[in-house]
């Protein structure tokens, strides 16, 4: 039985308010012919314009929300490169109408927009109501229309939800605008107690996928590292030294509760959730000889099974999307290399022959890749191994050290730690190496994981 500790006082987790935006179909949907907007005949992505949303109420909060939603939606749609976003200064002079049906199509046509997103924000008794409509500029038909209600404090979330729904509806793509990152950070500058050496703490943080809304999850004043999201995005498992030897803790974000997956004087580190969320793989010295091996336990800590058995160290597992295989780092050849083994412990094989490879992260389908940190010169770079062909490509090229890659849930971006800007910070980058973006700036931040 795994004890669930209801946290109180200074030990309490920061309870994260469950963000909620309610979507509903507007009652009067204009007739639609084709809902999918295409680009030109050469297959170029459709050109979209996303002006500021129209504030139907004049209070400052609504006006600000209308501006924010338009801008965040622009960035969200730009992120996946499924649409060519026309720069906003090009259409700054095009007047926004008074409603979603008052659209100057000839002006949008002049700048060769294939689609334009028109939205309104209206204050309500409980928050705001947001209406968003995507028009096909050529046909002047609505291709997408939705109404959303929610709290004005979540205005970025309205944009994220609209972006995910447009990606899904227009491109059959699972967007990541509502996903989150978790990582460790020493930004608070707090010091550990009970040690003679002057040691700083690391706490677990979360942020939106774009680096906004960074919030602290743990308040343990201890060393907390290697956080990973549960597949449902409601829990984070991580390594914590709060009781001395490192053990695996689970923070349930929306209940404010803490669970201890492993306990005791041996060391358990680097947890990772199985794709179905029912199990956690981790590395542990629990069998007593001090040697790290890979284990799998049920979500409640029961039924611990040993997956590897070798006198060398096996650490930092990652699950295949099917849940049937686990990749991990082992130094059994003398240098750390990546291996794959069945979740039943059978079929072990070495998959890298680098000078040094660590922190494998298995991509989601349809890609069948493992990203990892490879030593290249004085530091590390992010490399990606395609499992079918065995080909390795590189995402970073010697700017600072680059470690701990994590895939976005649709596999199209990665987050990783880099020291290229000085201290250790979290960056995101497209899977082809484009669109590098720094997401954290305060303190040192590392070991990101992207929610599913």
């Amino acid at each position: 039985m795994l004890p669930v500790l209801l946290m109180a006082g200074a030990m309490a987790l920061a309870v994260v308010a469950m963000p909620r935006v309610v979507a509903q179909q507007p009652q009067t949907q204009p007739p639609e012919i084709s809902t999918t907007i295409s680009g030109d005949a050469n297959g170029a992505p459709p050109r979209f314009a996303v002006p500021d949303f129209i504030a139907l109420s004049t209070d400052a909060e609504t006006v600000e929300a209308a501006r924010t939603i338009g801008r965040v939606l622009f960035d969200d749609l730009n992120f996946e490169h499924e649409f060519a976003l026309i720069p906003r200064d090009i259409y700054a002079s095009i007047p926004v109408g008074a409603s979603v049906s008052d659209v100057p199509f000839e002006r949008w046509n002049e700048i060769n927009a294939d689609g334009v997103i028109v939205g309104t924000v209206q204050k309500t008794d409980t928050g705001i109501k947001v209406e968003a409509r995507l028009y096909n500029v050529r046909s002047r038909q609505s291709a997408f229309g939705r109404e959303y209600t929610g709290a004005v404090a979540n205005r970025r979330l309205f944009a994220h939800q609209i972006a995910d729904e447009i990606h899904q509806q227009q491109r059959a793509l699972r967007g990541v605008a509502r996903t989150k990152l978790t990582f460790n950070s020493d930004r608070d500058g707090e010091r550990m107690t009970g040690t003679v050496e002057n040691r700083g703490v690391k706490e677990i943080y979360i942020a939106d996928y774009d680096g906004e809304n960074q919030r602290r999850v743990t308040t343990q004043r201890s060393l907390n590292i290697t956080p990973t999201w549960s597949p449902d995005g409601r829990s984070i498992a991580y390594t914590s030294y709060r009781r001395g030897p490192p053990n695996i803790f689970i923070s349930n974000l929306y209940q404010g509760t803490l669970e201890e997956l492993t306990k005791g004087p041996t060391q358990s580190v680097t947890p990772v959730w199985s794709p179905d969320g029912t199990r956690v793989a981790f590395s542990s010295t629990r069998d007593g000889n001090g040697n790290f091996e890979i284990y799998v336990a049920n979500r409640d800590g029961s039924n611990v099974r040993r997956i590897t058995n070798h006198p060398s160290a096996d650490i930092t597992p990652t699950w295949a999307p099917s849940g049937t295989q686990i990749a991990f780092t082992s130094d059994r050849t003398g240098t750390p290399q990546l291996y794959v083994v069945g979740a039943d412990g059978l079929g072990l094989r070495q998959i890298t022959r680098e000078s040094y490879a660590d922190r494998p992260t298995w991509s989601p389908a349809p890609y069948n890749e493992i990203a990892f940190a490879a030593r290249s010169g004085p530091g590390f770079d992010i490399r990606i191994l395609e499992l079918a062909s065995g080909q390795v490509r590189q995402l970073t090229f010697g700017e600072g050290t680059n470690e701990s890659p994590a895939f976005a849930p649709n596999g199209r971006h990665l987050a990783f730690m880099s020291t290229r800007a000085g201290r250790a910070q979290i960056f995101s980058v497209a899977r082809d190496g484009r669109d590098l973006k720094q997401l954290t700036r305060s303190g040192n931040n590392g070991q990101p994981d992207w929610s599913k």
Partner: protein
Amino acid sequence: MATRRTDRLAAWGGALLVALAVGACGKANPPITRPTPPPPPSSTPGSGNGAANSGARPAAPPEPLAEAVIVPPEPVTSDDISSASLDDLNRTSPLKPVFFALDSSDISPEAQAILDQSAATLKRYPAWSVTIEGHCDERGSAEYNLALGERRALAARAYLVSLGLAADRLRTVSYGKEFPFDPGHEEGAFSKNRRAHFVITAK
């Protein structure tokens, strides 16, 4: 302080009982307990003669008891160590850290010399328990460094155990590269950060 002294007296009392028991059994196994040298013959002339004369009558003479209590005074004299608090002790630790080469957990000859001294200290203070922390420099990756730090802690522990220390007095914990001793980014700092650090956790 008072309790510690009592403990020490009790320990010697126990050691003496062992010595006497060994004496009573004649030439049995060599005694395992360290600070129990057999009483020098000069101090026990009566019992030596008695044993030689009466054959199977090794009755334990009470006199050597008082003598033996004074025999091992050496550890007691360095009392600033045994009387220090755990924090003070760890701040000026008598157990010096040992350092490692890049990516290595091999115990170098220099590290052996330091561990030899630590082993002597730990034998002098048999009540001490120690946590051996394994640390790495920033040139390894964060996740694998957890494994490498543990390798270093285990290597130091194995060497101490080979010198006769009880394994259950020596816990290990790996901190990877999370707690550099020197935050610098050059070899001078790196070489200080690749270390096994000893923390006395009980005494």
